[in-house]
């Protein structure tokens, strides 16, 4: 193959992927533009399209038809997904209009879990071909789309690629035409610019939301089907495209169709040019760059032009963002009682090891409870910025994961290895650096804090949705870099049996996994402890409880008051003379450091073998910690910690009883986001008010519940 034909080949490949991205991003962008909904479930709708196509193609009846089942599925599957999308909008998203876009992120994140589970479920008789477990299936293509087609000059390309490009172009052009030449298209475009004004003209734009959501879903489905013809159908296919699709939408400008087209083709081309070696291989270290370049591009664009390439800054000025609903001030319990309960809880946790090996296994104490406490710390770190400064960080896994990696890297001696042959090496050796758990954690905290400073410095200048996206980009950037980095274990992750010691200067009391406080204890005839009680359990308990006290101290100090003022109204805090950006950055650094501490504890305490992998950096984890924070009630510090405990506990329980635990967890989030947005800590007050309502109002379920009710109409209230 000559260099020229290789380039053409690459170009075709890039355009094929690019046009798929265009369809995906266009749907996402239109949905965001009109309704301000960031749809994380878009990737799952994409996958669902492919699965529906597979199901349609498998129907026996279609075999006698004169044309191939693929054509029918290309028509029917998007319709089916459109129905699903419309249903999602009606049932779950509609109750949330007017709330902060964060709640849509959360809601659709819950939906991702549900869809993933539904897709991966292997159930139902074989004639129902939707559910095929985790295996990859290929879509059978009509003969006319197979083989190669000659383009002349000795160049041949896969017929299917030409088909994908042609079909994608037709659909994209059709969408563009409809947006520009139909009544609905005009209303959709106007709505993306100023929803409130559309209403003032007497047009009930809410009626179009379902339609828009269904249409965007159908576009995703088409993208899924055409890509499945090339790559097959597999459960993770939604996962693999959703982040690039977000990058494209943000790059091009949220709500801009043109941006989706340019961004989609651009990202598709860049990705292929860098992943397949022949073209640029000699000049660019493409392997290392391929995963990260798109994210770097996105970060640069966002910093230079926060509204994206084609986004119009004026369009974003609608100021319709609803407030974040904190759990604070909602409690029925006074502070004294909360304090007592807190102390009680810590005391209870301290006593739990009594009973190990008698009432429950060591697993419960050393793994489950430890994980719960670590997640509680992680959620606490997020609440510090989310609940108090109003910063929606979608990239908190970055700090958590970096902390975890640091612990393992220190234990492996790799961190000390970096300084070999420098004067620092001697110092590290005297310190007993590679053996000390304290130094390892301190390093993790330090690295996370530095990273948080960098990320915060670069991203806190942009607000709201853009901040969420840019933090997501940073986290994905690091994850993709780690995937390529041999030193960090690339796709396999790292593991070592060489654990850290409780100690410093080479002196210590033993390895973290080994130090046992009591092995067996009988008081009188009663066996109280029947297994090993590890010091590590108390080490985590003290660290987490101490971190909470520290965080609370900071929030009660003037620093915390300023942060809360910023969350309530950044404008007013500015008028009072506070450098709000500086405050937010500082909070972000503290938060990153705490997340790094939580991450650092994870590998060293939960097993004999220390291990960490790229999944500890996956964006899903960022979503999970946000969910835990909301579940508990953000803006309270203790709420998110309870939420995290519940989250880990619920997962544990559900895994034990059902294979569909993800779906159940997902539905639980959806329920919480819609009905209890202020979290668990608001439940007592919520119930209280409901009971009052029932007594006074004749028992009828008249209004929405007290939590979300004030926001239900906010979309209209603040429409200019």
């Amino acid at each position, binding site marked *: 193959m000559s260099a020229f034909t290789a380039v053409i080949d690459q170009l075709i490949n890039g355009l094929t992927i690019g046009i798929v991205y265009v369809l995906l991003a266009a749907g996402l962008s239109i949905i965001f533009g009109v309704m301000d909904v960031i749809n994380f479930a878009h990737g799952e709708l994409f996958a669902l399209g492919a699965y529906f196509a597979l199901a349609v193609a498998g129907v026996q009846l279609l075999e006698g038809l004169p044309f191939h089942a693929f054509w029918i599925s290309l028509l029917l599957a998007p319709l089916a997904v459109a129905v699903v999308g419309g249903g999602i909008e009606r049932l779950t998203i509609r109750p949330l209009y007017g709330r902060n876009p964060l709640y849509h992120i959360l809601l659709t994140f819950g939906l991702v879990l549900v869809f993933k589970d539904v897709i991966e479920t292997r159930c139902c008789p074989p004639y129902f071909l939707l559910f095929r477990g985790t295996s990859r299936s290929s879509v059978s293509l009509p003969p006319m789309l197979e083989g190669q087609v000659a383009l002349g000059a000795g160049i041949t390309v896969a017929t299917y690629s030409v088909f994908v490009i042609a079909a994608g172009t037709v659909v994209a052009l059709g969408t563009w035409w409809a947006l520009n030449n139909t009544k609905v298209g005009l209303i959709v475009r106007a709505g993306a610019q100023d929803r409130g004004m559309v209403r003032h003209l007497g047009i009930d734009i809410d009626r179009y939301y379902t339609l828009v959501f269904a249409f965007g879903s159908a576009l995703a489905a088409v993208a899924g089907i055409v890509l499945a013809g090339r790559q097959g159908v597999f459960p993770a296919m939604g996962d693999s495209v959703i982040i690039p699709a977000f990058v494209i939408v943000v790059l091009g400008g949220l709500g801009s169709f043109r941006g989706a087209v340019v961004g989609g083709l651009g990202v598709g081309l860049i990705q292929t040019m860098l992943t397949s070696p022949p073209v640029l291989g000699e000049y660019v270290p493409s392997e290392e760059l391929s995963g990260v370049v798109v994210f770097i591009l996105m970060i640069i664009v966002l910093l230079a032009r926060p509204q994206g390439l084609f986004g119009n800054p004026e369009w974003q000025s609608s100021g319709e963002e609803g407030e974040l609903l904190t759990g604070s001030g909602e409690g029925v319990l006074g502070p004294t009682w909360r304090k007592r309960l807190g102390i009680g809880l810590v005391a209870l946790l301290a006593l739990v090891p009594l009973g190990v090996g008698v009432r429950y296994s060591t697993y419960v104490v050393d793994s489950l409870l430890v994980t719960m406490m670590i997640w509680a710390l992680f959620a606490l770190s997020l609440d510090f910025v989310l609940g108090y400064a109003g910063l929606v960080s979608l990239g908190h896994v970055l700090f958590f994961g970096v902390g975890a990696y640091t612990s393992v890297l220190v234990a492996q001696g790799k961190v000390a290895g970096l300084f070999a042959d420098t004067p620092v090496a001697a110092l590290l050796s005297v310190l007993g650096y590679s053996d000390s758990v304290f130094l390892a954690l301190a390093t993790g905290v330090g690295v996370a804090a530095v990273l948080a400073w960098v990320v915060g410095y670069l991203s806190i200048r942009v607000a709201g949705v853009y901040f969420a996206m840019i933090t997501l980009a940073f986290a994905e950037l690091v994850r993709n870099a780690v995937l390529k980095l041999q030193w960090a274990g690339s796709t396999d992750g790292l593991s070592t049996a060489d654990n850290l010691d409780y100690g410093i200067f080479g002196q210590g009391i033993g390895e973290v996994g080994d130090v046992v406080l009591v092995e067996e204890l009988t008081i009188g005839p009663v066996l109280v402890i029947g297994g090993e009680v590890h010091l590590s359990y108390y080490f985590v308990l003290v660290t987490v409880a101490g971190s909470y006290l520290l965080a609370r101290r900071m929030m009660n100090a003037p620093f915390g008051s300023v942060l809360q003022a910023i969350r309530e109204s950044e404008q007013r805090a500015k008028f009072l003379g506070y450098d709000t950006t500086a405050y937010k950055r500082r909070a972000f650094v503290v938060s990153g450091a705490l997340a790094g501490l939580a991450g650092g504890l994870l590998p060293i305490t939960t097993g004999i073998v220390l291990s960490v992998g790229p999944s500890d950096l996956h964006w899903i984890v960022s979503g999970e910690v946000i969910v835990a924070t909301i579940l508990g009630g953000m803006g309270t510090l203790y709420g998110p910690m309870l939420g995290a405990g519940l989250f880990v506990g619920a997962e544990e329980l559900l895994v034990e009883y059902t294979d569909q635990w993800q779906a159940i967890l997902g539905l639980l989030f959806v329920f919480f986001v819609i009905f209890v947005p202020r979290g668990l800590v608001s439940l007592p007050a919520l119930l209280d008010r409901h009971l009052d309502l029932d007594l006074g109002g004749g028992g009828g379920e008249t209004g929405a519940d007290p939590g979300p009710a004030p926001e239900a109409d906010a979309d209209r*209230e603040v429409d200019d």
Partner: protein
Amino acid sequence: MSGEDAADPAQGEGGPGDSDTSDRSGDRILSVEELRAGYGETEVLRGVSFDVLDGEVAALVGRNGVGKTTTLRAITGAIPARSGSIRFRGESIIGEDSVATAKRGIGLVPEERRIFPGLTVEENLRMGQLGGSETAHRREVEEVLETFGNLRERRNNRGANLSGGEQQMLAIARALVAGADLLLLDEPTEGLAPLIVESVEDVIREVNDEGISVLLVEQNVAVALDLADHVFVLDRGRIVYSGPAERLEEDGEVLDRHLGVSV
């Protein structure tokens, strides 16, 4: 809806109390009584009462932040009224949202114009055509393109590329295409050059001559006095003065005390 209601707020702030409603006879297209509304814990309107007679230009003047725009928001249903009544042609429109009030024929030309910046002039007008009122008098897109200054030349320009005056003309034209029996104008001359202010005034007069009632909300007292038949002065959430425009012009105390205009 008796005439006295319009006068009673004058007692509120211990104003001069010289409101004059004796010549306020005729059908009321809009009457607002004891309206209270606000945002969150703040109550901006603390019992506002005024009315607009069919076919007149009424002006609601007041300084920054006294509740002028909030009044329009409450009328159009963009924010809920907490108490009081709002009647349009005698029918209560309390609790109706902005879609419903627009359909009744209450046209809004909002603060800062709020034309769709990414749509062309023609598309902005077609948005008016797609929505709006079925009962009110409506103008055709082509008709307003002809009659409104140079909108015709600009028909394919994006809204964002128009000058402030052109945007204002477009916002008014859009409301007329949507159809309005009562036009609510929120600071239509804000930020415009004097010459442009005059042409906007001319357009408002023309619109009124066709029989469309106008409620003009203004900070600029001169413009209000130029255009209005009757003027209401709003201060700190209450109407503190109500009278014919000619009389307010001579009332130095009201001008000075509530509007900060020295004479």
